[in-house]
């Protein structure tokens, strides 16, 4: 029961923390609950599908289908997070000023929500499929301890939900004037960490053969196996043994975020200037 609690808890916090960040980032946007819930539900359905077709997926790309899928969904999440931050850079200030906006803003808000719903969906899909496979294995084996293991699994889900809720509550307790900055930084590092993870899967799948050995090892300081290490891994992309390709991807995403935000900010200011001139 303890073992199953540990496994399920571990996977659920990975997805749950991402959902917590997304919920905090979308506070004040209309219909965000429906988008996030829809994303989580789609991710859950996807997880079941991935689990059901795990064999067929594994056989793709000369046996590296699983790695391809993992890398692809991670990179999709990275793109969505970058897009969200770009949107925030051009609309965040208006949003902060009046949490209810109209017309184009609302439409753009829906697109940003859709991007974040996809982020939730792929997080749940990735981690959820492992939980589904594990619990399926337990159920299929028909062990006498199955009920205990399933109980542990349910406790794991509850525990993961509690940690995620704590993160969400902690984030929304941040004063509004700081919240956007904190969330932007958090989403940037979250995306950078996901990109680094994608590099690991590309290496494991055999597509990346250089820059793959660890540069250093800080596991004696903060182990990724520990709960704080794991949370740091998910939220800010902490890796105790990063390779050069992971580090490069991490830094590249931070650089892209900064450039995109700068351009989006420029565009907003230019747009405003134009409006003022014509008025």
């Amino acid at each position, binding site marked *: 029961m303890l073992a199953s609690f540990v*496994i399920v808890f571990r996977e659920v916090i990975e997805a749950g923390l991402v959902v917590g960040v997304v919920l905090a980032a979308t506070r004040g946007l209309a219909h965000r609950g429906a988008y996030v819930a829809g994303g989580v539900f789609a991710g859950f359905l996807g997880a079941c599908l991935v689990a059901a077709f795990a064999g067929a997926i*594994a056989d793709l790309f*000369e046996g590296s289908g699983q790695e391809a899928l993992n890398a692809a969904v991670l990179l999709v999440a990275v793109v969505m997070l970058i897009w969200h931050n*770009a949107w925030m850079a051009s609309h965040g200030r208006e949003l902060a000023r009046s949490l209810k906006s109209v017309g184009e803003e609302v439409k753009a808000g829906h697109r940003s929500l859709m991007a974040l719903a996809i982020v939730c969906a792929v997080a749940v899909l990735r981690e959820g499929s492992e939980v589904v*496979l*594990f619990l*399926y*294995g337990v159920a*299929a084996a028909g062990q006498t301890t199955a009920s205990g293991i399933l109980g542990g699994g349910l406790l794991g889900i509850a525990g993961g939900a509690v940690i995620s809720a704590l993160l969400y509550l902690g984030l929304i307790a941040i004063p509004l004037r700081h919240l956007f900055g904190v969330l932007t930084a958090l989403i940037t590092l979250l995306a950078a960490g996901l990109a680094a993870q994608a590099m690991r899967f590309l290496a494991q799948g055999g597509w990346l053969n250089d820059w793959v050995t660890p540069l250093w090892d800080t596991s004696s300081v903060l182990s990724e196996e520990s709960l704080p290490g794991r949370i740091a891994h998910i939220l800010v992309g902490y890796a105790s043994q990063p390779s050069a390709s992971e580090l490069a991807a991490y830094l590249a995403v931070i650089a892209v975020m900064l450039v995109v935000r700068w351009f989006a900010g420029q565009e907003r200011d230019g747009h405003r200037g134009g409006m003022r001139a014509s008025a």
Partner: protein
Amino acid sequence: MASLSPAAFFRTALFTAACLAEFAVSPVSSAAAADVPTFEMTLKDHVFTPSEIEVPANQRFQIKLTNEDATPDEFDSHDLRVEKVVGGGQTGIIRIQPLVPGRYMFMGEYHAATARGVVTAK
């Protein structure tokens, strides 16, 4: 990039993703796989056989894991920096990057009480 709207950025990103996907369907692994040492391993009754393997250090290698159990398990190793689910009755290739000499623990995450092993790089 002069006027980069989120939508334009999104198109660029999609294009990049498409390029990456294109890159993904032509793995360079096929050529590399031939000269990479492969270690066969089976998982039966949630126990790895052999549970200890010795591999050359500073050289890429792969483990060909056959899961003879009916249920899936995940070959998981923080030390080796890999995780891979292998379904019941299926075979999976786990590619491992060059290792510095040392002992590296691994486990079948779904049955970690019994499914454990060590890779020794020399």
